[in-house]
């Protein structure tokens, strides 16, 4: 009878201990999962921001003439960049002026000072004709947008890469 009572007490404490341990492990697991999803959400928000900015910038560059419209004559006093010639094609002088502009000035004008960019102009066969900016080597987030456009009568690929 003595032995039986002793066993009952042991079973109770071991059961209780195991269930509490299990409960604590579950709580820690759920909390880690929550933190993981919070991190992923923040990463997604950051990636979406880079993506959206890339779209906006390539849109502006390809469709807008810039402000003032002949900004390529005086790039230092440019208010808004744009490479369109007003007829839907890219203006070669504007493209060249953009590619030769100071890297920091372009980032300031496009309001992407917290990111890096790389811009390439390729022909319709994909051969690189000209480029500017910093190539993404150690990019955490990198978004490349390619747009086809005309310069004169030649098809050109405009590839804009935004990264951080």
């Amino acid at each position, binding site marked *: 009878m*003595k032995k039986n009572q002793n066993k009952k007490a042991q079973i109770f404490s071991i059961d209780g201990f195991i269930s509490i341990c299990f409960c604590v492990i579950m*709580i820690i697991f759920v909390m880690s999962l929550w933190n993981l999803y919070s991190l992923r959400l923040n990463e997604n928000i950051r990636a979406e921001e880079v993506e959206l900015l890339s779209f906006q910038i390539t849109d502006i560059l390809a469709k807008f003439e810039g402000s003032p419209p002949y900004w390529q004559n005086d790039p230092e006093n440019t208010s808004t960049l744009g490479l369109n010639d007003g007829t839907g094609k890219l203006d070669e002088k504007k493209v060249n002026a953009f590619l030769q502009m100071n890297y920091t000035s372009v980032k300031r004008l496009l309001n992407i000072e917290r990111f890096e960019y790389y811009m390439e102009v390729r022909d319709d066969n994909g051969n690189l004709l000209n480029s500017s900016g910093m190539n993404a080597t150690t990019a955490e987030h990198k978004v490349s947008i390619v747009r086809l456009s005309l310069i004169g009568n030649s098809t050109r690929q405009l590839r804009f890469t935004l990264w951080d």
Partner: protein
Amino acid sequence: MILRITKSKKGFVAFEAIIIIFIIFVLFIGTYAVYKQKARQLILSKQEIDQRSDCLQLANAITSMTMVRGAIMNMTSYHNMIIEPDQQRITSELSICTFPVKNVRNESGSSSRFQINAGRITVTNQNNGIIIANT
């Protein structure tokens, strides 16, 4: 003698039960505190995402309107926003976003920092500038 030992063991079980109930109670309180904190974080995250959505919508409208002379766009914002044309930035209580153009002004033509209230907003491309106003 045997009887005394047995009584002592019963007391031990009762003491264990109290400790376990106490631990379970502490665990419950801890879990509830974590739940409340996470629920608060969730509400904040939702508010931040909602405000960010409004912010990005306005930033997109500004960028799109820049490309189309004379265009007018109406949209609805559910939060107050502060537009800083010089910084090319839109801020709300919990969110911030940017736009890649500089020529943004308020109704009176000023390009200094101004506020847009929740409600209907009109974004207009006028004289090569983007004018944002409540309607």
